[in-house]
């Protein structure tokens, strides 16, 4: 009974969540539940508050309202335990150019290690798995500063994967990745979900976002819609949140997003 309850508890849940930065209100009382073992994608126009919402859900930003991870209020989680269950991949945060790729990815194992203990065999195996899955294994001994933007992103993704957490939050994980590696990322996320893990990502690439299980749409600090990617209602909401300047079509069994050129022209003329 309790196992069934646990599996029905959302991976992440926020109620009346608000975030203010100085005088500006970034998020206005958001209530949201994200299911387990699913990939949920948060999309919306620039400045909608997507990254702020993700950061608040990860407990990395002071906020009003309540937030829970795997059914337990976020403030009640001890730091290390929370870090074992929730992995975070931020946007443009890196500066650790002097660390080697191996050392960076090994940082992902910190939540699993006792304070002064050396990495265990399990830690090393997890790091190797993560590096191989992002095809970054060959650069193990290179420093992060020697890598290109896309290569660094793959290493940082490996760092987030090495945590082997139940819930992964990723903010713009496709930044700097070329199309083949975007497809690889998609395969990694789908494999994680098949293993029963929960992935929540903020994506600008709306076409990629339509591969997710669920979409959460945001505009002006509010959630405007939440629904399955395959739903027509979700597609209509997606078009609406982008001011009807995109359209969603089916193509060879996939959903694709096409910019609406007429709308673009109109807006130029209006300018």
């Amino acid at each position, binding site marked *: 009974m309790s196992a069934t309850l646990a599996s029905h508890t959302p991976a992440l849940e926020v109620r009346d969540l608000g975030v203010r930065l100085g005088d500006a209100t970034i998020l206005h009382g958001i209530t949201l539940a994200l299911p387990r073992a699913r990939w949920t994608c948060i999309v919306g126009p620039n400045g909608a508050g997507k990254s702020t919402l993700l*950061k608040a859900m*990860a407990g*990395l930003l002071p906020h009003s309202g309540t937030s829970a991870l795997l059914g337990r209020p976020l403030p009640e989680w001890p*730091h*290390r*335990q*929370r*870090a*074992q269950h*929730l*992995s*975070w991949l*931020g946007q443009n*945060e*890196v*500066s*650790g*150019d*002097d*660390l*080697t790729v191996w*050392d*960076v990815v090994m*940082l*992902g194992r*910190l*939540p699993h290690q006792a*304070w*002064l203990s050396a990495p265990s065999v399990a830690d090393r195996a997890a790091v190797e798995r993560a590096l191989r899955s992002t095809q970054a294994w060959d650069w193990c*001994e290179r*420093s992060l*500063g020697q890598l290109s933007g896309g290569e660094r992103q793959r290493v*940082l993704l490996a*760092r987030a994967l090495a*945590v082997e957490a139940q819930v992964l939050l990723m903010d713009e994980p496709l930044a700097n990745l070329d199309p083949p590696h975007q497809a690889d990322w998609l395969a990694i996320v789908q494999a994680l979900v098949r293993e029963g893990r929960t992935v929540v990502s903020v994506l600008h690439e709306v076409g990629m976002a339509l591969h997710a299980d669920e979409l959460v749409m945001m505009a002006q600090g509010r959630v405007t819609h939440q629904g399955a990617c395959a739903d027509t209602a979700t597609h209509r909401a997606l078009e609406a949140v982008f001011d009807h300047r995109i359209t969603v079509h089916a193509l060879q069994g996939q959903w694709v997003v096409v910019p609406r050129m007429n709308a673009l022209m109109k807006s130029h003329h209006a300018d």
Partner: protein
Amino acid sequence: MNARRASWLVAALLLAALLLAALGVCVGSAGFENLLGPLLNPGLDPDATAMAQRIVFDIRLPRTLGAWGAGALLGLAGAVAQGLFRNPLADPFLLGSASGASLGVALALAAMGGAGGMLGASMMNSGVAVSVFSSSVWVRLGLTGAAFGGAVLAVLLTLVLSRGVQHTLRLLLAGVVVGVVLGAMTHLVLLFSPESLQAMQAFMLGSSSFVGWTAAGLMALVWVLCLLSAWLLARVLDGLSLGDATARSLGLPLGPMRAALVAVLALATGTAVAQTGLIAFVGLAAPHLVRSLVKTTSAWLMLLASGMGGALLMAADTLARWLIAPQELPVGVLTAVLGGGYLLWLMQRSTRLGRGGGW
């Protein structure tokens, strides 16, 4: 592979320290050839032997080892500061410790009526040293205490102004403000106590000339303490290099750990400054030099930057004694010239490599 390279560098720095220590013992106003005879033939002239032993074991050896200790403390503090602020230009004096120590010394000198200055001047005229550290035991103890107290109080003031250690930018700005204000206060004190000017100048230029066994032992003790603490906290610095949010997501309690790192920074800098005055660029250059030789984790960097700082200051100290022997240059002047030249070269190199923003 990098750990192996780092181990080799540790061995090389250890060897360099031993060689420089041997060299440091040989260089001084009395030369070495004058001491060698009495040391090798103690029976010939017991007075000369006793004097030679005193010069080598009570003066040159502790000051040479003391120079290594001060350099090691500054190198370690530099590595901590650069990791903590995620800024390659951060140096150990960033939180106002240098200006706090200066004000402490200026106030102490003014209270002594420039006694330290007069003693310093008399020593300078006799060609022994240009140093404020050349006073009697009590005066020296007072000045060292004032420098240390000033450095620690200045860091505490910075922490109060920045309202804790959570925001590194605020901490950095508060450090700049404290540095400027305390610097102005130091000048004001000196304006009303002009007799202290010469001694103050010696403090500002830095010197290891009167580091005895007690001071060398104290620096060694503090270095071990700071290195151990920094080593325990090295993982925080590694985590911080990926950004605050990532470090927090890894379960690192950043607040208390940042406070501990600031304490290490303040203790290491305060101790070095109190014993040797303001020695520029060692804390800034040592971690850079290490990073240009090996890319490694913060734990290794702490140890290597210490070794590099120690070797640098020991070499500069020996050079300062040798360049215009039998007189000597203040070591801070040498480190400033050499360190400035090194940074300029680094800047030119990074411009050539098209890495304008980084180093």
